[in-house]
């Protein structure tokens, strides 16, 4: 079936199978930041924004996003907030193997985009869907707190 969506700001048409997932369709379209992990909605490495909300693209049917806005990390590479978040994660040493990082960036971006107040609890809550098996969560949380502090100062 043919569907139309806004992918990273660009009107896009996809031919998708009825049983295909958004994850499969995104990777077929070249959005390789979207990682295939558990495929059961547990690990969060395939997290993307669907109409601004973080979702596990492995448990969203591709056909469902007809008429929706889908944002992957590729679509946010020039975004000031995303650049600040990426820089802070690197500076805090929050990136090791990196497999979970695109998903974590999307989850943290969705939270930070809401604006203050953002504290450690809200950050940890936002990351409940992102598993990391090497860095852990302390440094990503610290990085997000640092960005949140800057947002608070400038808001």
């Amino acid at each position, binding site marked *: *079936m043919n569907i139309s969506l806004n992918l990273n700001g660009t009107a896009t048409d996809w031919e998708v*199978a*009825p*049983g*295909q*997932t958004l994850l*499969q369709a995104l990777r077929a379209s070249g959005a390789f930041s979207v990682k295939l992990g558990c495929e*059961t*909605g*547990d690990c*969060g490495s395939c*997290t993307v924004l*669907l109409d601004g*909300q*973080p*979702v*596990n693209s*492995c*448990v*969203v*049917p591709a*056909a*469902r996003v*007809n008429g929706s806005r889908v944002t992957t990390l590729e679509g946010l590479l020039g975004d000031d907030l995303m650049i600040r978040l990426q820089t802070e994660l690197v500076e805090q040493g929050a990136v090791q193997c990196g497999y979970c990082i695109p998903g974590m960036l999307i*989850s943290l971006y969705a939270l930070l985009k809401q604006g203050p107040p953002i504290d450690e609890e809200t950050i940890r*809550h*936002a*990351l*409940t*869907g992102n598993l990391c098996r090497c860095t852990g969560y302390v440094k990503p949380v610290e990085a997000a707190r640092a960005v949140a502090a800057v947002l608070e100062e400038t808001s």
Partner: protein
Amino acid sequence: MWKLQEYRIATNPAEAVALMRKGPGKGAYIAGGTDMLLEHPACDFVVDINRAGIGDVARTPGGDLFLGAAATLQELVGNEFVTGFAGGAVSMAASQCGNRPVRSTATVGGNLCNALPSADMAPVLLALDATCYIADEDYQESLPLTDFFVGPRLTVLEDRLLVGVALPGECAGWRCASHKLTRTAEDISLVQVAVALGVDDGRIQEARIALGAVAPVPMRASLAETMLTGQEIAAITPDVMGDVAAIAAGECDPLDDHRASAEYRRDMVSVLTRRLVTRILSDDGDNSQDGAA
């Protein structure tokens, strides 16, 4: 990949039912899909109800809280009508389901229609006297949520569509709290208990105790409720509380499985019932769920 022949998108409830009945082959409704994309149920087509106009959350003119079946759990977490109803107990229960990205698409209707004994939203909605609204092609009917669940993974719906649930306005001022006991925060519950009490003039006027994951369907502990109803708060001694908790534990019918033994589940019904009733009556204004039992 999930072997589906067709993905149909409904724009209203009657159309959804018609699309379901049109055939050929076997169909299923899909909303958030967070369970269906794990389980890939054998069917030829699905009917997507996300755009069927049943995703709203609203207070009706009569004061009821209406939760559209396609409302996401994240919507329930943050919606001010929901956070302002019965101390925000429904928001709190929704916030304990799955993880953040799952809650973005998982819906309250999907949680109920999947009809697991451990359905996360069932106990708190049962405790707040929820009514289900069900659409057919040319009529709608309503029935109490207690009558909605028929067995594990089985509801009264057949090929009809759940359009939403309504909580009566009288429950808005009830004190309500629930607890989801799990091994890890994201796991399916071992035991759930939700308690709602309508308190007036120092007396429990209305009592609801709902249990999840301890019987073939989410259930009410009606004998324990009867014991509490009409009681003066001052007269509820630890002994009375112990009796209420023991009766609730006696009403459930848990299974042994790899998550927990039946005996443990029954004990936890007793512990959690006592704890929740005690906490609600002490009314410290904190409706948050406490830690592990």
